[in-house]
């Protein structure tokens, strides 16, 4: 077994390109070995912004020999009276055997010519050039570029290639770069070439040349540097794993320096400080140690990770500190300037900010959100205080968009609204709800917690859904520029979290009403719909109910069986919170022994009814118990009667588990019924009465789910 070192040296790759490229390098090499029958063990990858490296500790020196029997043409074609034909000679030569080595064997009842083929495994040195050439060519990046006069594409320009197997250079070339046995150290600190024959030499050589080539080692070093910097000032690095991931791939050898800035900047909200440090500079904020991370405030220090072992770290510190001060001065300027104008006074300027061209300005959106948020508070019976605060918060919710701070740092929308509201003297629940309006941002993100925040967050999303769908801006499969899928998911999660029993249709309708209320009569056409809308209220709400139900389905099938989810949604997809409860209850039921036979029975019920619908054979207006003939149908009707009452009671109490438990007791009577009763009796009265009973049964099941979809 031999060692292989394969390094692609490039100009600085973007941090986010490196980990996926390393994964491809490993997977690509592994599959090439498999395809070529080359035994391999101990594959790993390392890399920095300037190099993507594959290290193989144990690679077979030779491809495994191939020995197998291969089938040729049918015997009657290959041999004429036992003499080989042209077809046989062709087959033999294509397999590299003599014609007289061919044999005839029986395969699937047919006589076929066959050959025992033996292929000597090639030396790894013969195979590697092609394997590695194609490995580079096949690497993919989120964005790739050309450079110089070449046509090849890569994440950034490739400048050197190291390919060494068993101490010998493997000839590989890409974009005019030929492989060698020499790597390069840190760009400035160790620019001389480093000869490499073994993995150990490679890693040690680079280490001496100021390159920590293993990303995990760099991460450890970065974390310990940061930890030390923070500890020196009795602080703790603010946890930010994404930033660490990025910085790992911004340096080849991590060095650290702590910036100590003036305490007076701490008057800025922590989020502002953090964003200023992180988004432009990749600095690590430091908070006070000794309190829980949720409560800890920032202190006037931050950590910087840099790349070069410079002569005097103080110089780097001075330069970075000046940059940080300029950033924080900017932020402080925005903070002070912005607070001179109360949020309320910004509504006028918000009128000039277009939200959707067809629908109107951001200020109109805020006014509608205020109406909607207040109406929601009433529907959810949250009380007058909540209603008032929710209206106020929604009205002011978008005002921070026309502040300088949010213009500079869009990520701070909502947070600045909260801060500026507090500074204006707005009540705390108003400020909090302004911040919470954007929650949740994704499927696992935090939900709004305050009652006002829930109303405003819902209003924010419902207003966007109704407005965009109203003017035909529905998301396509590939693009969702207005974030409507996320908005729908947010609506679902908040309603579920509220455990509100109502229908989302009502929420959509009251949101739609706000469009008319706020725009007044002038904004509405003769049908009472907003002028700009292309669809009627009914169509719009139907489409949105459907859209939300589809998002709900995607959310649920992550945790529950798809057929259970579909069965529940088929029966009712509007009462969002109850959908969760029903799916949960039904999934529990699915494993009980009686469930599967019941589902089968119900499927028969549904099939019969569908056939009956098609044939328009009709059914009785209502079931007439006196018209029953068989005892089994009477028994089923009686069972239905008592179970229906239980189901109705359970449904009213939203006790879906009991409803399910009641329904499953119909299994026996349903089985008996189908065993002995012929629904499609010749006598129309008899038939129509039975069909009517099945219809009543179906209605009852549909209170919970269409279980014909299960199994």
């Amino acid at each position: 077994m031999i060692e292989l070192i394969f390094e692609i040296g490039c100009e600085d790759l973007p941090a986010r390109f490196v980990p996926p490229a390393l994964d491809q390098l490993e997977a690509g090499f592994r599959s090439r070995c498999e395809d070529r029958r080359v035994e391999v063990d101990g594959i790993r990858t390392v890399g920095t912004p300037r190099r993507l490296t594959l290290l193989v500790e144990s690679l077979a020196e030779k491809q495994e020999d191939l020995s197998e029997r291969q089938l040729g043409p049918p015997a009657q074609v290959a041999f004429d009276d036992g003499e080989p034909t042209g077809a046989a000679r062709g087959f033999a030569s294509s397999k590299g055997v003599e014609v007289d080595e061919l044999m005839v064997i029986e395969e699937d009842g047919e006589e076929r010519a066959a050959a025992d083929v033996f292929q000597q495994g090639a030396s790894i040195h013969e195979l590697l050039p092609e394997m590695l050439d194609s490995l580079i060519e096949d690497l993919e990046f989120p964005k790739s570029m050309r450079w110089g006069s070449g046509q090849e594409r890569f994440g950034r320009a490739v400048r050197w290639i190291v390919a060494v197997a068993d101490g010998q250079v493997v000839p590989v070339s890409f974009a005019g770069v030929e492989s060698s046995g020499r790597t390069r150290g840190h760009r400035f600190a160790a620019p001389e070439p480093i000869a490499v024959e073994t993995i150990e030499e490679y890693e040690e050589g680079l280490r001496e040349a100021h390159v920590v080539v293993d990303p995990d080692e760099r991460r450890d070093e970065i974390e310990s540097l940061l930890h030390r910097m923070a500890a020196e000032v009795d602080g703790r690095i603010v946890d930010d794993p994404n930033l660490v991931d990025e910085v790992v791939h911004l340096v080849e050898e991590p060095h650290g320096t702590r910036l100590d800035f003036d305490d007076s900047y701490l008057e800025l909200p922590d989020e502002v400080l953090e964003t200023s440090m992180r988004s432009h500079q990749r600095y690590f904020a430091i908070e006070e140690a000794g309190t829980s991370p949720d409560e800890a405030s920032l202190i006037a220090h931050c950590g910087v990770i840099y790349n070069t072992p410079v002569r005097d770290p103080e110089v780097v510190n001075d330069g970075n500190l000046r940059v940080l001060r300029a950033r924080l001065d900017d932020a402080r300027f925005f903070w002070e300037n912005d607070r001179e104008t109360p949020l309320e006074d910004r509504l006028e300027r918000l009128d000039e900010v277009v939200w959707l061209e067809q629908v109107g300005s951001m200020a109109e959106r805020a006014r509608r959100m205020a109406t909607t948020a207040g109406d929601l508070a009433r529907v959810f019976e949250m009380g007058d205080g909540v209603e008032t605060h929710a209206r106020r918060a929604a009205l002011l919710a978008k005002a921070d968009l026309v502040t300088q701070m949010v213009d500079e740092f869009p990520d701070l929308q909502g947070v600045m609204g909260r801060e500026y509201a507090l500074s204006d003297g707005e009540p705390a629940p108003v400020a909090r709800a302004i911040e919470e309006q954007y929650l949740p941002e994704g499927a696992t993100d935090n939900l709004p917690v305050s009652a006002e925040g829930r109303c405003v967050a819902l209003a924010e999303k419902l207003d966007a859904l109704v407005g965009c769908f109203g003017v035909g801006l529905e998301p396509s499969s590939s693009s969702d520029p207005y974030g409507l899928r996320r908005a729908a998911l947010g609506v679902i999660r908040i309603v579920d979290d509220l455990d509100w029993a109502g229908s989302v249709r009502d929420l959509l309708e009251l949101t739609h009403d706000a469009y008319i209320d706020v725009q007044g009569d002038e904004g509405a056409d003769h049908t009472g719909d907003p002028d700009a809308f292309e669809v009627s209220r009914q169509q719009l709400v139907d489409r949105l109910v459907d859209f939300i139900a589809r998002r709900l389905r995607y959310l649920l099938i992550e945790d529950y069986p798809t057929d259970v989810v579909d069965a529940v949604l088929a029966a009712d997809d509007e009462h969002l919170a109850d959908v969760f409860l029903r799916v949960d209850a039904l999934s529990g039921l699915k494993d009980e022994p009686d469930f599967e036979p019941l589902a089968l029975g119900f499927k028969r019920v549904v099939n019969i009814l569908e056939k009956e619908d098609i044939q328009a054979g009709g059914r009785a207006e209502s079931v007439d118990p006196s018209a029953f003939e068989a005892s089994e149908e009477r028994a089923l009707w009686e069972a239905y009667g008592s179970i229906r009452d239980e189901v109705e009671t359970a449904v009213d109490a939203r006790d879906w588990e009991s409803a399910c438990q009641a329904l499953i007791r119909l299994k026996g009577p349903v089985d008996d019924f189908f065993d002995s009763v012929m629904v499609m009796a010749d006598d129309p009265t008899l038939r129509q009465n039975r069909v009517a009973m099945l219809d009543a049964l179906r209605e009852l099941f549909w209170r919970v789910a269409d279980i014909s979809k299960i199994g």
Partner: protein
Amino acid sequence: MNFQDLILTLQDYWADHGCVIQQPWDIEKGAGTGNAATFLRALGPEPWEVAYVEPCRRPDDGRYGENPNRLGSYFQFQVLLKPSPDNVLELYWDSLRAIGIDPLDHDLRLVEDDWEQPTLGAWGLGWEVWTDGMETTQFTYFQQVGGVELDPVPAEITYGLERIAMFMQGVDNVYDLQWSDSVTYGEIRHEEEVEFSRFHFEEADDDLHFQWFRQHESEAERLMDEGLVQPAYDYILKASHIFNILDARGAISVTERQKYIRRIRSLANGIADAYLEKRRDMGFPLMPDDEARDYIETLEAQEESS
């Protein structure tokens, strides 16, 4: 090192490397890329290496001379190397050494920053260069200009002169920079910043500017039809600057903005095609004769087969 020495040193360095030292083009523009020495010369097969200072106007960034870091007008030092040489980064690091930034004294880093200029139909991949955390240079491998794929690919190096000078002189306010040993940047430029901010934000006449935009646009189209590539290009630059003023004034809504950008881009795409056509008619004079002949023959063969 004072501001003018910085410029002179960079000019000397790149002249020694073999660059043509061109001069700014006398039409307002938002970036050095807009100079025909970059925008047009980046196109086509001819090799081209150039360096020059370019004054840039960004009406939206004007701050009445009150912000120590933001300016409505400033200077870029622009280098274009086509095709990008294999040692292009080494050349750049050496240029920093030439102005006294030693890479073993400072932390120099290349941080992903892809460049795009939608009005010019141009984009490329590259970095912003950090010098002890300060962004001092934009480095881009152009992939497309005027909607045309570039082959060969040029490297563009854009030095932010004020940033670099502030870094080197250790000043926190741009107006405190020494331009020469006796005159400051503020003494030369401050009043200009104040007046242009007032003009752009308070006094500029929207109707007049909208009218000018339309006129420049149609004049650019007319000149293009006449085969006057460079005059047409001037009118595109003028239209583009008028758009920047209207944009700074908030006179253009978000959706309208996209339409204006498309209009300018379609002019820029037209001029790129027209320029390439013209260079071809001239036989790509910056290429060695035999290479130009081969190149044109290949183009003709491609056109015939398609």
